[in-house]
C-alpha cells in the first residue's frame, strides 16, 4: 500500500544522516563562560575581605559593649535621682 510505503520511507529518512562537527573553539568558549560565572579572587583580595569582615565584627562588638555601658550609666543616674527625690519628698 502506498501509505504504508510512505510511512516506512519517513521512518527511514534519518538513515545516512551526517554527524556535524562541534565548534573547534568549544573548550575556549566553555572556559570563558565558566570563568565569567565564577570569577577567581586573588589571595590578596581574599585576605582584604577577611580583614574587613573581622574589623566590622570588632567594631560591632565594641559598639554593643559601649551601648550597654551607656544604658547602665543612664539607669544608675535615674536610680540615684529617684532616690534623691524620695529623700526630698520624705524630708518634706
Amino acid at each position, binding site marked *: 500500500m502506498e501509505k504504508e510505503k510512505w*510511512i516506512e520511507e*519517513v521512518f527511514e529518512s*534519518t538513515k545516512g*544522516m*551526517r554527524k*556535524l*562537527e562541534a565548534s573547534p573553539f568549544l573548550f575556549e568558549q*566553555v572556559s570563558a*563562560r565558566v570563568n565569567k560565572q565564577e570569577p*577567581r579572587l586573588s589571595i590578596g583580595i581574599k585576605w582584604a575581605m577577611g580583614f574587613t569582615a573581622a574589623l566590622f565584627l570588632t567594631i560591632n562588638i565594641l559598639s554593643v559593649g559601649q551601648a550597654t555601658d551607656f544604658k547602665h550609666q543612664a539607669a544608675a543616674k535615674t536610680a540615684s535621682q529617684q532616690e534623691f527625690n524620695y529623700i526630698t519628698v520624705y524630708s518634706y
Partner: protein
Amino acid sequence: MTPGNDHDISFEVLVNANKKKVFNVALNFVRHVEDAEDITQEVFIEVYRSLKGFNRQSSEATWIYRIAVNKSLDHLRRQKTQKRFGFLTSLFGESGELKHDQSHTDHPGILLENKERSRALFAAMDTLPESQKTAFILFHIEELAQKEIAEIMETSPKAVESLIQRAKAGLKLKLEKMYKRGI
C-alpha cells in the same frame, strides 16, 4: 579555570573527546545549529561543575549523554514557554517572537533527498511525550543499544523497549493523519 592545572587539562581532553557526540544529540532534539552549540556549552559547564562529585556508577559517556539529554529537554521546555508567552504578549501588541520556530526547522545533517520526509518525521516527533521522544531519538537516530539508553534515562531496558514501541505506534498514527491530509 586555570591554564596548566591538571583538573583543567583532563577536562579539556574530556570536552574534545565528547563534544561531537553532545553537539549531535542536542541537534537531534532542537534541530538548530546555534541552539545546539549553546546547549553543548551548557552541558560542559555542568560537567565541569560536577566532575568532582561524579560517582562513576555509570560510565563517563553515559553520564555526559544524560546531561546532554536533560539540557536539550530543558531548552525545548523553555522554548515552549517562550512560545506561549510570545502568544500572550502578541495579544497585547508587544512583539514576543521566537528567534526561530522549531517546527519549521530542518535538521542540518539530513541528506537533501530525505529533507521532505524527515520534516514529517520531526513534526510528528514533536508531538510525542518527552520520554518517548528521548527513547526514540537515542534508539532510532543515535542508534544506541537499549541497555545504554536505559542507563542514560535511568530506567530498565524493558521500559525503554516499551517507550520505543509506543513512540513508533504514536508516530505511525500521526503520520497516517498527515498522509490523509496530504501533509
